[in-house]
Every structure is written in structure tokens, then in C-alpha cells.
């Protein structure tokens, strides 16, 4: 193999490679300018959980433990309690409610089994995805972090309306 043929071959490869690079320059950009711009999330995106309330503001959760039972990573911890007050004064919709409802996001794998298991539609996945913290203990989210009335929604996302309203490579797949 001579030096000349080496040079010719490598120049060819460089041209081949760079042609791909240059061909992309005039095309539309896919890079999301996070956090300056909101990320578009699929409607079925599984973010941080939300605990829902009914129209009177009572928690829907009745502490049946089915989510904890369904959880493959064992990250849900519940303490049930009895609420002997009249129905309209109660914390929850029923006389049984979750006194403690913790999800350990250090363990959660966002599989969504808890949402599937819930007989009361009390827990769903929200869209909050910025879960990184400086302290590992902060990954443990309590009821105050999870309740839909208390959870602060991040301004950094928007939810896609439909399958077409997507700006990522998923579209092409």
C-alpha cells in the first residue's frame, strides 16, 4: 500500500463524513433549548406521581395498599388511619385514608404499576420530571409533595396534544 493511495482513501472518507455533517446544517434543529424553552412531553409520559382529590377537595386515596403491593421496587410506604369524622369534614373520601403516603424516588422505576393497580384513580403519573436533588434523603417525597393541590408543576414542560404534536425523533420511528 503506497502513501498516495492512503491519502486518497482518507480524503474520500473525510469528504463522505463531512458531506453528512454539512447536509444537516440547513435542516431544522431538534435541540431543545431546555430550560429556556419548555420540553414537550407525550400525554402518556410517566413523571412524578400525583395524588388526586375529589370535587370537594378530599383525598381520593383510601389507603388500600394496592399500589404498594403492585410496586416492583417497593418504593411506596403507606400508613392507613381511620377518620371518624362526618363525610364532609373528612380528609379523604372514605373513613379510611392514608395518614402517611411516601414514595421513594431513589427507588421508583416509573413503571406505572401503581397507577394501574389503583381502584380509586387516586394516583396517576404527573409530568414533573425534574427530580434531581442535592441530598439523597430529599428523594423521599411525602404526601405534601405528591398531592395535586400541593405539588408545584414545573414551568419547563408542555404536554403534547396529539401524536403529531411532537418535535423529537420519535416521530420518525
Amino acid at each position, binding site marked *: 500500500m503506497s502513501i498516495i493511495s492512503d491519502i486518497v482513501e482518507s480524503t474520500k472518507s473525510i469528504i463522505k463524513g463531512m458531506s453528512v455533517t454539512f447536509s444537516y446544517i440547513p435542516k431544522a434543529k431538534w435541540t431543545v433549548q431546555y430550560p429556556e424553552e419548555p420540553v414537550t412531553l407525550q400525554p402518556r409520559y410517566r413523571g412524578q406521581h400525583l395524588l388526586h382529590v375529589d370535587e370537594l377537595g378530599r383525598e381520593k386515596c*383510601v389507603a*388500600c395498599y394496592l399500589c*404498594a*403491593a403492585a410496586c416492583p421496587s417497593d418504593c411506596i410506604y403507606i400508613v*392507613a388511619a*381511620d377518620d371518624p369524622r362526618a363525610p364532609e369534614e373528612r380528609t379523604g373520601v*372514605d*373513613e379510611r385514608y392514608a395518614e402517611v403516603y411516601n414514595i421513594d424516588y431513589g427507588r421508583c422505576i416509573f413503571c406505572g404499576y401503581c397507577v394501574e393497580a389503583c381502584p380509586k384513580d387516586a394516583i396517576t403519573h404527573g409530568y414533573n420530571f425534574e427530580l434531581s436533588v442535592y441530598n439523597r434523603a430529599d428523594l423521599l417525597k411525602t404526601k405534601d409533595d405528591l398531592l395535586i393541590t400541593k405539588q408545584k408543576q414545573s414551568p419547563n414542560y408542555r404536554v403534547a396534544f396529539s401524536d403529531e404534536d411532537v418535535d423529537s425523533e420519535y416521530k420518525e420511528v
Partner: protein
Amino acid sequence: MTTAESVKVTINGQEFQVQKGAPLIDVCRENGFAIPSFCYYADLALQASCRMCLVRIEKMPKLQTSCTITCTDGMIVTTQSEEIEKAQRGMVEFLLANHPLDCPVCDRGGECELQEMVFDWGGLEERFTERKNYYPEKFLSPIVANDPQRCILCKRCTRVCDEWMGEDAIEAGGRGANTVIGTFGGWLNCSQCGNCIEVCPTGTLLDATYRHQTRPWELERTVSTCTFCSDGCQMSLGSRAGELMRVVARDRYVDGINGEFLCIKGRFAHPFVNHEERLRTPLIRYRKGGKLIPATWDEAIRFTAAKLQEIKDAHGANSIGVVGSPRLTNEANYVLLKFAREVIGTEHYTASEAFSLAPFFKHMTAPLATHKDIRHAKTIVLIGGEPEELQPLTAKQVRQAVRNGGAKLVIINSVPVRLKQQATQFLHVRPGTEDALVLALAGQTDDAMAARKMGVEVGEIEPLRRMIDETQGNVVLMFGGELSTEAQTILAQLPGSIGDEENRRFLFHPLPLFNNSFGVHDVGLMDGKLNATGLLDAAGDTVRALYVAGGLLPAHLQGREQALQNLDFLVVQELFATDTTAHADVVFPAASFAEIDGTYTNNDGLVQRVRQSIPPVHQAKPDWVITSLLADALGIDFNYQMSASAVFREIGEHVPAYQGLRYPLLKDESKPVQAKYQLAGQRAEVADVLAELRQRVERMTGAGDKIMETPEVGHELFKIGTLTGKVPQFHLLAAGNPEPPDVLVSPLYQITIDSGLRRDTAIAGD
């Protein structure tokens, strides 16, 4: 007993030889054909209301309920077909017509028989669109929550209440679609055993103390033995995160001698385990009259060992007394005994037992009856004792033997106990004259004298003797603590002197008070020179120091309050601060029954396992561990390597009755192992005892009043002592919960902690 006739039954094309008259449902299930049912419950009256156990029997026009059909020769049965399945699916649909869909809230969810049945037989859709019956949820008592909507009217609760407990407190009222389970006035006026909760297949009757606490699958389940009386019921402890949440005896979790039976104590008196007043650390009182100061384990052990050594050197080994307890495990008591003999070298060791069974065991001429034997006995003689309050399982078995087995029951008691409703014959004797009957039974006195002393008619003794003579089957002789040691001896010799006949067998069933009364005797802790009262009387004199495990009984302390103060040194192992720890120089926090491994020996002589359910709370340690730590500090290493199993292996080598027993042999609670007690022959020295007994009977005045009043339910059962006083839900009763004027409410109100139920009944301990 004659063996029942064997008949041929064809089930689903297979032929089986079965006992004639056996319930078809049992036969099918035993042979592997699953038949669903709600209302059928073995050994209870038949109900046939759930209609789930339908089978097709040839030559019968319609589907039949297999629970009410008994096997007859040539029966051809089909248990599975399209027709049967359709009927069963229809039944489930009807059962669900009024059943609310609130499984997520219901405490039974996850272990509900109806839920399981619906998984197998239920439809996907509910076709009933009508409004469901609605009844408000309510409490029938502080420990029974009732949601009538969920009821499927299997009536197991009413049958259990009537047949097991003889109380009939819960019944079905109303009619037709409006039938509900309830009580008169809305309160359960009963002994609060909670068996109705246990047998309920749905969430109609629920444990109000465990209400909405957690879910069954969240609980870690441990099979263990009850610690409250000598019956030794097997139960399942449910714990979560180091907390004992509930105790049940459900068939699916545990299969012991008691079936699903438990009493109020077994089922509800467990919150003392996680009670906030449990001793947290070892405590040392550095000078007399000073305060108990928390200390580390190392310091407390070192301090105790040094003090004991000092006293031993100064006053000799016999100046130290060691007191075990019939509430502790065999392991704890054995290690205590070993400590007393080998480390201290004292002859003064004993246990704080209410009465000694030593004379009985020494002269026993017939084997011990198990609870199963009692259920199938033909004649039961109960001398003294009150099993309904003190040994509830024995009482249940006696009642069932009479009701379902046609047994004859003779009660000899100075108190008209409730069990006398079932009795064929009730000898109402004067208090303290039970001995006279034993003498009469032994044929050593004329009936007239005995009858005069007891205050009964002369003719009342002969029928009893005849009843025993004519029995075809087992005769169970039960006796309580009322009998003197001499009477115990003579009674123990009685079967030997009467002799077994072909179809008759004598069995004994003593009724001691504590969970390990037998065990403490077996390991030999009761063989010491002095008993507990003797030790206390000698306190400050020949006995300078006491090492007490498990606390002294109030009966022992009565009138001897000064004795403990006279001691130079008192070491106590306890769960709570008690009357005994008030005088202690060192207090070690002991672990309760839920925190240890070990064995108890019940009044059947069955050696049953106690298993660790939760780690010891705070700094508590098992009793035997504390003793071996002390032994270690005094220079002798028992070398148990922290293993209860090693202790029990040694018991198996040294205690004759437990020869060859090991933990693996005791693994299966459904096949309990009975200790091998030596049967005595006829003994010559009994003549002296007999003479003594005769003298004792002759000394009786033959005058005095009888106790005419039937004691109230719970007079012993609900005593704080037996419930340990650390059971919060019972405090609620005293706190003045709805107690309308001029109304008698649930007997639980009688446990009035606030009104100061006598302190002396408190026997804290594990």
C-alpha cells in the same frame, strides 16, 4: 369406640371407601374435589344457606347441598358440571346483589373468602341495577366493628357464639332481604372473644382495634403460641415494621389445636408488646432508697455479677435465691435452673407458680388428655377450676363435647360456674371441700360423710361413680387449683385403682393457670428447697439476695411487702415497672413472647414453639440470654452462642420428659408433640397421703354458706392481671364511652382501670 361402617361412594367417576354418615362436602374435599362454600364450618350446626356447595347426586331430583348430605352406600356424586357451575355462578351473583363494592376500604380485603369466591365464580358485570340495601356502619363493642351491608348471612358468627362460647350474644334479626346480624340494643354483651370476627368470611364483623391499620399482605406472619393461659392456643402474629399489629388464628395462616378459636386475651391483649411503658434499658439502684438509674447492659451485668459474688462469698451460696416464672419459656426456666445450680450453687430455686403440680406428676397413672381427646370424650369430670374464664379453649372443647358429641359432664365446684348449663350433673359444694369428693371417689370414706362435709345430698355421689363406671370411651378428669396436694395425689392414683376396662380409658387434664405451668415443673425449677412464699419469708434472714425472672405473683407478695426490702440485693427481669421492680436493685428489660424463640408446654403436655415475630423492643433481651450473660460474668460460659435451639437441645438431653425433642420436630403446629411423661404405678406410700387426706376431710366443718351467685362473664378473664393492664383499647371503656344511664352495657365496662381495679391482680410479665 366402634368403627363406623364403611360405604362406597362414587365421586366424579372415581370410587372411594368412606365412613358412613360422613358429611359429603368433607369427603369430597379430602379426596381433592374442591367444593366452594361459605356457611359450612366443620363441627358447627349445619346451615345450608349459601348454596355454594351444590352437587348433583344421582336419583335425586335437584342439585343438593353437599354440606347437609351424609354419605350413604352407592351414592353417585358429580361435583363439577355445567349445570352446577351455572347454579354456583348464579348464587354468587345473588350474594353480591347487596354487597357493596368497597374492597379497597374493607379491612378484610386480601383475605376475604367472598373476594376469593368471586374471583372463581363471579361474573364480570353486575346485572342488578337496583339500589342496594343500606345500613350504617357501627360498633357492636369497642373491639367489634360491624358493617351489615357486607353480610352474606352465612350465620357462622351466630353459630360460633352459641356453640363455641355458649353466649348467644349475636343473632340474625329482621327477615327476608332485610335480615341483619346484630344484637339486642346494639351492643355485644358477651365475653368479647372475637371469634365472630375470625369466622366471618366477609368484612361484616371486623376487629375494631386493628381497623384501618394496614393490609393483610403487608403483615409479616409468624406462628406462635399464646402466652395468656395454659391451653397454649396456636396463633398467627401479624407484625409490620417491628410493631405487633394483630393476632389471628385463621385457618389459612395457622393450623393448631385450637382451630380458629381464640379468646379475648389471645386475640386482643397483645398491645402490651409495643407499649410505651416497656422498660427501655437496664436500670440500677446504686444505693438503697435511691432511684433506678438507666445503665448500659455491660454495666448492669458487671454490677449484678459483682454484687452476687460478694453476697455468695459473705453468706454462702444458699443465701441467694433464684425465682423463675411459669410465664417464661422452657428455655428461660432451664437456664435459670442451670444458673442456680451450676453458677451460684444454691438450693433455693423455685418459680412463682400459683400451685404446684409436682404431686400430680409424681403419681400420675393415666396419660394426659389433649384438647382433641376432650372434644371426643364421653365423660368429663371437672373438679374445681373455672375453664370458661381461665382456660377458654378447654371450656369450648367441653361445651362442644357435650353439645355435639353427647358427652356427659359432671361439675364439682363451690361456685355455680356458667359451664353448669351444659352439665349433666352439678355438685354444688361448700367452698374448699372439693377434697372430700376425691376421697369419696377413691372409695376411702362413706358417701354420707363426704356429702355432709360438701353440703350435697348423699345420693348425688353414687350417680357420678356409676357414670364413670358405665362410660364407653374416654373419661377426662379435670381439676383446678382448689385441690390440696394430697387430693391431687389420690386423684392421680385413681385411674390405677379403678383400672381401665376394655372400652374405657382415663385421661387427665389439669387446669394450671399459666402458659408454661407444665414446663416450669418439667425442667425441674419447682424442685427447689423452698417455694416462692418460703423464699420471701426467709428474705433478710437466710436468704440475702433474690434473682427474680418475670415478677412475683400478687398472691405471694400479699402480706410480705416488707420481705423484698429486707433483701440485700434484688435483681428482676421484667417487661414493665411492677410491684417487684419497685424494690429491685437491678432491673433488666426482658423481651416479651413476640420477641423471642422458645417453647411453652401447655396443659395437654404439648411442647409448642414460640417464634420471634418482631425484634426485641428498645434494649430488651430474651430472659435466657440475660441469665447466660450473668453466668458469663460470673465465670461460667454456658456456650449457647445466642441460640435458643442450643438451649432446647440441652433440655432435650437433660429433661426426661423431653428426651429427644429438638426444634425441627416441633416445626409443624398441626402435629404437636406431646412430652413423654412417665406413668406411675400404684404406690405404697400413697396410704400415708390417703390418711392425711382423710384427716383433712374430717377436719372440715361441714358447715358454712355456699356461693350461690353465678359469677359475671369476665370476672377472671378481664382481670387486668391476666390482660397485663397494658392493653390500651380496654382503657377506652373506662374513659366513659357511651354509657347511657340506667343501662347495663357490655361487660367490658367492668374492666374499669380508672376506678382502680385491684392493683394486686396485676401480674405483669410476658
